[in-house]
């Protein structure tokens, strides 16, 4: 993917750029707000990652300028401020996602992946089959080899969330937000425990587990 990164801190910029290049993205880095805005208008990248506080023009103003310019591709806002008001301001300015510093590279990659697949409703299927597991999204039913598996409503949501994004990583933060509407980092391993319970219900002894843990990032379901 062609990504424009606008970040004034050289160390952070280098860290992100290297990580994303290794992941196969093409990166252009700008360190000044005005330069970044010009570059975005000139290159029309697939995704723009903007730091909230920038010299020249700040991140919020930049996103607003881009949007009023008709730029449609996703924008991800990075920030050192993680207050509710800041998050809302960022999203209202037209950013698609908001990531608080510090963040892990894996989290950033997962968010980029999720953004690149938007809109989620496009190509939504009513039935997803992966391995022995089939989910029926209309009836909210889960079957293994044709036999129904009883899941709690939110266990079903968890499984659906992972299966509909098979092949990409879904992070803990994304799951917390999507399944339980929790926007803060809880002090306990609630996601891990839920995944553990879900695995116990859907995996068959002997087979490799359907849901894989991606260390330091989140979870993924491979292949379709």
């Amino acid at each position: 993917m062609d990504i424009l990164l606008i970040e004034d801190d050289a160390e952070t910029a280098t860290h992100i750029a290297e990580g994303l290049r290794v992941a196969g993205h093409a990166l252009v880095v700008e360190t000044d707000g005005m330069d970044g805005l010009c570059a975005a208008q000139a290159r029309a990248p697939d995704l723009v990652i903007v730091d909230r506080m920038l010299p020249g023009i700040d991140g919020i103003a930049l996103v607003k300028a881009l949007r009023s310019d008709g730029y449609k591709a996703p924008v991800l806002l990075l920030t050192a401020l993680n207050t509710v008001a800041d998050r809302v301001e960022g999203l209202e300015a037209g950013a698609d996602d908001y990531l608080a510093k510090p963040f892990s590279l894996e989290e950033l990659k997962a968010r980029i992946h999720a953004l690149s697949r938007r809109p989620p409703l496009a190509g939504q299927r009513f039935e997803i089959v992966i391995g022995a597991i089939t989910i029926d999204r209309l009836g909210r039913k889960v079957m293994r080899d044709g036999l129904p598996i009883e899941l709690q409503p939110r266990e079903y949501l968890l499984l659906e969330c992972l299966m509909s994004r098979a092949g990409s990583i879904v992070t803990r933060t994304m799951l917390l937000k999507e399944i339980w509407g929790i926007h803060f980092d809880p002090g306990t391993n609630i996601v891990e425990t839920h995944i553990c319970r879900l695995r116990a219900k859907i995996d068959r002894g002997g087979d490799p587990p359907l849901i894989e843990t991606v260390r330091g990032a989140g979870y993924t379901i491979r292949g379709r």
Partner: protein
Amino acid sequence: MGDNALLRSTSVRLSLVYAGLVIASFVLVGLVMWLIATHAAEKELRQHIALEVAAIRTEFETEGLEPTIAAIDARVQHPGALEYWFATPAGERLAGDFPGLAGSDGWRRMTVTEGTAGAENREEMLIFTAALPGGARLSVGDDLGRARAVQNTILETLALVGTAAVLLCLAVGLLATRTILSRIRALSTTFERVTRGDITARYPVSGSPSDIEQIGVGVNRMLDRIEELVTDVRRVSRDVAHDLRTPLTHLQHSLEQARAEERPDERSAAIDAANQKAAEILRIFDAIVRLAEIDAGTGKLRFADVDLGAILDRVVDAYRPDVEEAGHSLETVDLWPCVVHGDEDLLAQAVANLLENAMRHTPPGTAITVRMLPRDSGRGFEIADNGPGVPETAYGAIRKPFLRLEQSRTTPGPGLGLSLVAAIARLHDAELHLANAGPGLSARFEFPRKPLATN
């Protein structure tokens, strides 16, 4: 400096103004009284003269000329009598001793100079002249000196009383100023001491009901609050340092371990552990920032009507496996769709923090109950456990940031949870009640009875 301060002082200026006003009003009153007295004295004199003229005229008409002349001469001899001049039409004296009175008929005023040159005494006289039958002319008059005597008495009295009033005014003003000044000096001394860094300085309250005293009491209350906050800040910075030192030390250990580790599996486990420590440090920072954000009150911008029952259901569902994994039981009672005006994220966090608290600070086997207040008894929820509880004397203290009871120092996590809940409650105008659940601790988050205006 005392005199300068005295002169600059507002109250001295005020008492000078008062003294001026007193003088002005005495002058005004004096003038009015003077005019009234003058008028009254002249009126009386006129009456006196008119009566006298009428009496002599009657005498003349009934008795004739000679008895009238005798009567006038007798009157002249009388001490304190008026002045008379009775003359023929040609102006020759018939009776009386004041030829200067002669003049045209009717009322007249005249200034007479008496005494020798150099010691002259000017008198203003009021005279009435009438022609009697036969052409004889009678003039009766008197000087207005008596009226002037009354005027002088009035002016003297006024001057005396006025001076006394002005002096009294100034004396009281000065005395009041000295008292006020000493209180103000006490106030400014307090301010100076606080400015120099002595936050324990207080205004010495004397107990009088004066305005300055009230300001002093207000200042003391304000200083109490500031001292409390400063102490809190000091304690929090110390506790932040303490609470961050521990996970930072752990982080350092994990990283050292990772570097020393040869086996790849062990190494990545050590790195994971380090990552977790870093996450914990970040969580502490987030909580501090959030606490500051909530206390700043900006969070109300995001208030909306939210379903408290749904929030409870969602958060309890998220935490249930973890709570059960820790060997506790978790039960929800009486959840119902209760609409409250609030911040969904923050309410969820309040529920989560209370659950985490109940989970962390109680031994395995503890039963945790999440209950919503019944429809007829308000809106809110209660999270109770049957663990060891918290001494009631500590209920106030555990709401403060970072404060954990000694016994819970050993359990993980910074003591921000409950203070965050308390801050969220404050933001929602809700009450956070801590109570003994007998056994255990119950925390009740209760919204105000009457919904506040939500425009």
